[in-house]
């Protein structure tokens, strides 16, 4: 039933999308996936590429399970001295990418609330990439230096902008760190919210200049709160894994493998998934994830959802 809701929501959003102006940027995956959903294994992908989150964003996996709200405080205000060059030459964009999120979803018996953050601690463009970005920037400046903007000028600008986006998305090396906390309540009440699980992790991305695949490595430590080791089978985990992804203009497909060690009972399990993102428009991405999840039983992974990103307060669904 909820898939019908998803379809309805997508159609509702499509109604308000200016298709003539669509600029699909699947390679940037600018629509956020909340750390809280990642920690709860509710995210389609467990290994997320470092992203440049919007000032304000909403992720909606599906209507029954809930979603997430994210905010990047740095971009809630204007920065008059923050130039285009600062953006991609800054190697430690910790503050400008610091993102806070809250997420909620339901299980069969509880309502879960999560809080999390993430930030890029390192972002490096190779010298060749920087030169290419500056070259395109110069071209855009030259086109923009005009008193009249006609259709041809607009077409030239749009073409150059797409070229620029392509280069900007090819970050050579990224390290993103994230952390999240999960709490649950059996009666959807804050008063009865109990602390369940916490985790910290890092996503390390490398994109060779000439290789068509993106490599993202994950290392994650998570632990159950209020659970005594040896008493609970869900206590302390160490995850490591690797994701390979291939991107085209409208879609992104990833293969990911994660090994999970349960440090409290000395056992391990793994997750293997294929994740596909298809961009219907700039702010609407259909996402599907299929494969094997960590659990020994009921471990078939099958998630289909829609991710919505809103960067503008004026957007409304009528």
């Amino acid at each position, binding site marked *: 039933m909820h898939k019908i809701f998803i379809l309805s929501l997508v159609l509702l959003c499509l109604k308000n999308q200016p298709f003539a102006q669509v600029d699909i940027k699947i390679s940037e995956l600018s629509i956020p996936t909340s750390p809280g959903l990642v920690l709860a294994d509710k995210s389609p992908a467990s290994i997320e590429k470092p992203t440049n989150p*919007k000032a304000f964003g909403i992720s909606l996996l599906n209507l029954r399970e809930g979603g997430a709200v994210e905010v990047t405080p740095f971009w809630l205000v204007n*920065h008059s001295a923050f130039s285009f060059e600062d953006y991609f030459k800054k190697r430690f964009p910790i503050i400008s990418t610091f993102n806070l999120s809250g997420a909620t979803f339901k299980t069969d018996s509880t309502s879960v609330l999560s809080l999390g953050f993430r930030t890029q601690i390192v972002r490096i463009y190779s010298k060749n990439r920087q030169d290419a970005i500056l070259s395109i920037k110069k071209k855009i400046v030259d086109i*923009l*230096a*005009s008193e009249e903007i006609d259709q041809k000028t607009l077409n030239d600008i749009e073409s150059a902008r797409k070229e620029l*986006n392509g280069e900007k998305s090819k970050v050579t090396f990224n390290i993103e760190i994230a952390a999240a906390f999960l709490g649950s309540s059996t009666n959807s009440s804050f008063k009865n919210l109990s602390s369940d699980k916490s985790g910290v992790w890092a996503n390390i991305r490398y994109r060779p200049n000439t290789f068509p695949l993106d490599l993202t490595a994950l290392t994650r430590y998570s632990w159950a709160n209020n659970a005594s080791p040896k008493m609970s089978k869900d206590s302390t985990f160490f995850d490591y894994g690797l994701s390979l992804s291939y991107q085209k203009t409208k879609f992104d497909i990833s293969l990911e493998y994660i090994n999970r060690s349960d440090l409290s009972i000395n056992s391990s399990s793994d997750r293997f998934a294929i994740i596909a993102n298809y961009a219907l428009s700039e702010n609407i991405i259909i996402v599907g994830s299929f494969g094997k999840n960590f659990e020994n039983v009921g471990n078939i992974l099958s998630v289909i959802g829609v991710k919505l990103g809103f960067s*503008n307060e004026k957007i409304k669904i009528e």
Partner: protein
Amino acid sequence: MAVKKINKQEQITANTPDSILLTITIGNAQIGGSVVRWKNSQEIIGKGEIKNLNLGTGTTLKGRVLKVTTNVLDVNEQTNGIIINDYFYNSGKPLFTFEDRVNNDGDILQLITEYNFK
């Protein structure tokens, strides 16, 4: 891709024998290009990125109107905020800042400002 057009007028006091220099900077990691010319003149005195453009000594500028057209393209996927700084070095009030928003990534804001030198 939409173009949002804004027109405004400003007054500048430039009672100085020193040269007035104009620098235009674009914030929020966006990209902009400008065209600068005197009103009622077709001669363009500055184009592209404007840095330390010598407009002449302050006393010679009295009564003249400078037309500055700046187009900013939203290339920053993290914000749709636009911020333009026109800095007139050696003038009475050197900094004029304009802030606005565009609706979508890829939109353009065109700001046309006429500066009246007093």
